[in-house]
């Protein structure tokens, strides 16, 4: 009965702001020495050109527990990199970005992620009994509130699929999550079939980042449909200490993650 069509509709243009994409993600079992922070600016909504990168900023991360400083090097393409970062579980890190003589700071704590117990495929589970899905199992620790971010990415796709999860209704249990693709003629999406490869990442995230990413995911996939909550500007954790009106978008997160790939049989 209902119908969907893409229309041209004018939207307003708000203030252009600095975007700090500081995701220090440490894969379990690696050194985590190599890290990248990206700086860019926001654009009008229907922007079609490349994202404007920000160069000439100074980027520094400090371990608040050890006072060790990590200076990131400007690659002059919007990325700032380091090759000797030291991640320590449970430690708190401070980010400092200086750009256009304004100082942006943020704080985040590195939490531990459980191992993935098992990855399987099935037909019966998931949304549709006739479509293949990949299942991921892991144990949620019982003694605390835990928050997770999943990324499922089928090799060859343009985008990964993000999902947030809290253990609110699941505390202390073996948690099962799945990813299934539906047929979609509009965008040539096909269900999973034998030979498809899916990259799976599971991040342990802080409650505050969970609150941020939950809304980000809801707004990204919902896009203002009638059953999502009223859209509102997302505020990350980066504070402009010089001029709080000129706040930045993005987030400073420090996570541990596990990663695996699955090939459908």
């Amino acid at each position, binding site marked *: 009965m209902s119908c969907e*069509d893409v229309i041209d509709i004018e*939207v307003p243009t*708000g203030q252009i702001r600095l975007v700090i994409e500081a995701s220090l993600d440490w894969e379990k079992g690696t050194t985590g020495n190599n890290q990248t922070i990206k700086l860019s600016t926001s654009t009008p909504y229907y922007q079609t050109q490349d994202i404007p990168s920000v160069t000439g900023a100074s980027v520094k991360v400090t371990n608040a527990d050890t006072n060790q400083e990590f200076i990131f090097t400007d690659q002059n393409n919007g990325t700032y990199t380091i090759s000797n970062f030291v991640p320590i579980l449970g430690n708190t890190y401070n980010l400092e970005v200086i750009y256009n003589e304004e100082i942006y700071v943020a704080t985040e704590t590195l939490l531990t992620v459980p191992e993935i117990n098992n990855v399987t495929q099935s037909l019966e589970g998931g949304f549709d009994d006739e479509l293949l899905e990949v299942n991921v199992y892991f144990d949620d620790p019982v003694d605390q509130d835990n928050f997770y971010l999943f990324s499922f990415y089928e090799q060859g796709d343009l985008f990964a699929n993000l999902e947030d999860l809290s253990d609110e*209704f699941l505390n202390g249990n073996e948690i099962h999550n799945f990813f299934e693709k539906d047929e979609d003629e509009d965008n040539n999406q096909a269900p999973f079939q034998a030979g498809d490869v899916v990259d799976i990442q599971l991040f342990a995230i802080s409650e505050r980042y969970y*609150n941020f990413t939950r809304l980000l995911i809801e707004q990204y996939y919902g896009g203002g449909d009638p059953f999502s909550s*009223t*859209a509102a500007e*997302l505020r990350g954790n980066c504070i402009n200490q010089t001029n709080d009106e000129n706040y930045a978008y993005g987030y400073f997160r420090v996570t541990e993650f596990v990663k695996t790939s699955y090939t459908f049989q």
Partner: protein
Amino acid sequence: MKHLILGFCLIVSSLLLAQEKYSIRGTIKDFTNGETLLGATVFLKGTTNGAVTNEYGFYSITAAKGNYTVLISYIGYESISREIQLNADQTLNIELKESATNLNEVVIVADEPEQISIKKPQMSVSKLNAGTIKQMPAVLGEVDVIKSIQMLPGVTNNGEGSSGFNVRGGAVDQNLVLLDEAIIYNTSHFFGFFSVFNADAIKDIKLYKGDIPAKFGGRVSSVLDVRQKDGNNKAFNVNGGIGLISSRLAVEGPIVKDKGSFLIAGRTSYAHLFMKGIEDIKDDKISFYDLNLKTNYEINKNNRVYLSGYFGRDIFNLSKIIENNYGNATANLRWNHIFNDKLFSNLSLIYSKYDYQIILDFIELDWVADIKNYNIKYDFKYYLSDKLKLEFGASGISYKLNPGEVSPTSQTSPINYLKLDQKRAFEGGLYVSAEHQITNKLTAQYGLRYSSFSRLGGQSISNYSNNQPVVYNSELDIYERGEVTSETFFDKRESIQHYDNFEPRLGLSYQLNEVSSIKASLTRSTQYLHLLSNTSSVTPLDVWTTSGKYIKPQRSTQYAIGYYKNFKDNTYALELETYYKAIDNRIDYIDGSDLIGNNTIETEILNGEARAYGLEVLLRKNKGKFTGWLAYTLSKSEQRTLGGQAGGPGINNGNWYNTPYDRTHDISLTGIYKLNDKWSFSSNLVFQTGRPVTYPNGQYNYEGFSIATFSNRNEDRLPAYHRLDISATYTPNNKPDKRWKGEWVFGIYNLYNRKNAASITFNQNDQTGLNEATRISIFGLIPSVTYNFKF
């Protein structure tokens, strides 16, 4: 003060110094089926003395001794006059015959019949009878109460596929919806495409948009008073209709002729039967059904009992993914007792319940929630004199809310059992109200309602650090949940929080001449129950909550003034009203609030205020081959939510912002044309300013995705909503002596196939990576055909 005393003396003396007076009382009914007629006029010819029948068809008139001609009239019925000699109290029961030409003619009643409506202080009320509603074009062939009131000025809703309706810029939960006095918590079937009211079971509806009589309380925007038919007490009678989506059947008849009758009406959809035949959706199910029951018995001329009930259910099942069912159930036992010629009473015992269940198979989760209440109500009407009528009464409502219970659906489910705190509360009400004819031209209706509300114990309440359930984070300029420091347990006998409110109601009518008047009113009202919804559409899964320690009662004050004129021998009527409404303690949700499964809603909300004002014009044509009305509303509805206790500037930086119900312009045109005995046509034309929404105002790249940034809350608007519906009714040769009467109704909804946006979503195309806007429109052009029958 001096004037007040003087005025009081005048009132008292006018009552005491009266001549020898007697009363005449009775019940006005329909001749063919014995249904009581509410709103019929009984008049003493040549005087200004008269009365309008109440909800039970009862009237009483007091007049000086003498000979009178009593004129009894009701729109659509032949008037009757009787000569009486009033030298003792007497009873005059009258049965009116429907006008011969009325079988298909439509009758639109604004308020009460002419002479009275001009004169009565009651304003801001719209009355539609089932006959009118049935003549209006309807979507999918199902006539609909909620859709038809949206054709009146000041009434809108959030578009196709959203539940409920909005009155004068108010929220859906600010409407008190009563079906035979029982509270209906969700008025929708099929997520708002149909309403829960079966037009075959309904006698009439009254919508109070303001100037709410003192006998009603508990909501701040409006009262929708829906009355079920009593059932034919003269003969058995069946009527029904067969449509493409749903069918209905109503059976009524006498239990004891002229003494008691019953009505059973049912409706069901059968779309799911067709769905079974389609491979892709054979496991899906979407259906609804409902059942209306009513029976009454006249024990003797002073006592009558009624029992009425409603049960409805919606079932929605998307193969193995989501299973959802919801519905209302109500019951009401009433006892009408006439103490004497001047004192009428009604005692009601009422139960109502709304519940829903949602099963998510893929995560093996089962969720149930409900709200139920028991209500006892005793109402009196005292016809003190021809100048003064009193209404008074008391009510008590006991609420029990189960906001949510989560359980695993299997042994292996990872879901832990969780039951949110049950909430208990008691709402009491006491009122007295007078309708007072001060002079021949000036009539007043003044009353006072006292309401009290106790949130009862039996649960723990969280205490927060600095008594702040929500805390402003000044660094990030966002609101966050407060820190729970302790919990206080309240015993079942204890009251967690108590509120009291006095609610004055005042209406004045000044008659300029025989055909025109001006009226003014003031209504104060309090609301202790709130529907929690942070989505732009109300859904069946939204949860009701009570006022308590952290959520204060909503309080509204509404002022209205109006001008009313009948012209061309009452063929046309014009109503002009303007209003201003201010609401305290209107909650709104902090950015990113999460209401699902939340035991501590106070951590997601801020207390704010709302205001609405507007101008409404209604021009009606009441008589002739062509009837109908044009309604125009110019209005504004906004809200402001300051930080208050939580600190900070508040939502939207503390500035006023549009409510989702703000519509600058709202135009509705309804026309009904009766060509001949076989054919009649009707049409609706609707135009509304688009709904306020929040659009993106930029984007940035984060983790490989294009993330939208947003402008201020509700600063943008969807494109304007408009559509045209038409319908034609064909009545084949119905011989008057034939019992079976049938008619075909052909309809087209949205004739020019306007793609009205139910919403516009903004997404990044996952093939091109570009941002785009997608419009979702629910109904394009929809033809329908229904066959209605009666025997």
